[in-house]
């Protein structure tokens, strides 16, 4: 089953701690995950740590799921970084700023592997 959601990205402490350490597994742990509340996780029958596939009109990405009860129903969060960018919009609406927040997305449980940072970048070359 796919969950219809709104995607946003944003800063976190651990993403900041590893901002100059982006080749590390610590950076993947800090920026490569998707947060949703437990109600939404239940709707797609997934548990924390299991991978989910997030898809927007601009791409898709596989990342582990984490629970954040602060997210309202239907709101998913990926920390800013390459994993969030995989689904972000390059459209700036005429003001220079791409779309990193508020994009319609679908989320589904998956057995696919989450890409590392170099793997994500390699698929853009």
């Amino acid at each position, binding site marked *: 089953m796919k969950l219809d959601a709104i995607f946003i990205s944003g800063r976190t402490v651990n993403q900041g701690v590893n901002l100059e350490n982006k080749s590390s597994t610590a950076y993947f742990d800090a920026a490569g995950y998707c947060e949703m509340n437990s109600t939404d996780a239940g709707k797609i029958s997934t548990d924390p740590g299991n991978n989910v596939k997030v898809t927007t009109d601009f791409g898709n990405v596989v990342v582990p799921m984490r629970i954040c009860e602060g997210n309202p129903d239907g709101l998913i969060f990926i920390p800013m970084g390459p994993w969030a960018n995989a689904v972000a919009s*390059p459209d700036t609406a005429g003001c220079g700023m791409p779309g990193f927040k508020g994009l319609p997305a679908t989320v589904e449980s998956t057995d696919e592997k989450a890409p590392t940072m170099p793997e994500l970048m390699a698929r853009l070359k």
Partner: protein
Amino acid sequence: MLIKDVICPFCGCLCDDLAVEVENNKVIDVKHACKIGAAKIRGHNRIEAPMMRESKTDEFREVSYDEAINEAARILVDSKRPLMYGWASCLCEMMKKGVLLAEEVGGILDNTASVCHGPSALGVQEKGIPTGTLGQFANRADVVIFWGCNPVQAHPRHMSRYSVFAKGFFTNKGRKDRKIVVVDVRKTDTAEMADEYVQVNPGEDYKLLAAFRAAVADKADVIPDTVAGVSKEKIVELAAAMKGAKYGIVYFGMGVTQTRCKYKNIDIAVSLTTDLNAYTKFSIIPMRGHYNVTGAGQVFAWETGYVNGIDMSRGVPYYNPGETCSNDMLMREELDSAFVIGGDAGAHFPAQSIARMAKIPVIQVDPFHNPTTEMANIVIPVKVSGVELAGTAYRMDSVCLRMRKLVDVDFPSDEEVLDKILAKVKEIKGVS
């Protein structure tokens, strides 16, 4: 040796009370910093030597600084539309050199505000900005609004030094003297410690700001029962609290600049702040990310008249966001090279933009391996500014401070690299 009064080179707070223990030219302890600042000052594995490769799928080969710099200069001279992006982790002295280089090669000068507070600059150009300094806010503000920002995660010491817990001249009880309001689409860690959490629907900040303006103007009769997911009753109650403040401050972040309506959200937030000044004193300020992104805006503005997205190809600076910012130019496939310094486009641009960057030569000047390195053809490692090099930076409130050098390293500074590239560019072009 304990070095006191060190300024943190991570975020726009520029916390200036750090103490760093240095032994044998190595940082061994960082006191008073947040987790992020301490990590930056302690350092990470860095790029040890300049590197080059023909194809982005090749392995890098180590080269000399001269070879990397000469090839970088050749690429810039051969380019018709070179992007020169980043700058926010550079010191102001380097940005000035960057403007000179952009002028010489007819480059597009853009900084990280392009994916951060660029819309704030547009909003300010529309409406101005009633603002102040973090010291004024710490000493005076008794109503504090965080709108679309989460300092617990992004600016961890902001609340203790300036906004929430700080004890000031007129706020000597600190937290007890302040009403804290958080407006966000999700209940963040900052929202958890607020007096009021206002959950706005994603992309509907403009509507809510418009409703607050109506309530402040005593026109509550025009407000629907619910606006952007927030009840009319709550809007009227909070508008009264704003008007009743002795001094109010709105801190806003990318929750406002990156969502629907973008710069128009800043435009109306500034208007709301201006309206409130008919009743009391109210200020507004963006929460800046990179420690010197404010400096990048300052230097570019005093050198060219504009803060970002500046096209130098016409011989005079030309600015039209939506046309001249990095992501617009990448998506139009208008660029034929990219020079990335003091910012990580690879990590912070949408993947579709980066896919365009993969098609053009990329020169990276940075101490660290990051996603831009994955897309680069030439990599030139430099000093970490603010740790290994002293110089000027601007705090998020545009107060300029002198960053300190803590340790010596053999790497060149960004400024030295820019000087050499500029000299080589002039040599190739045959100009003095």
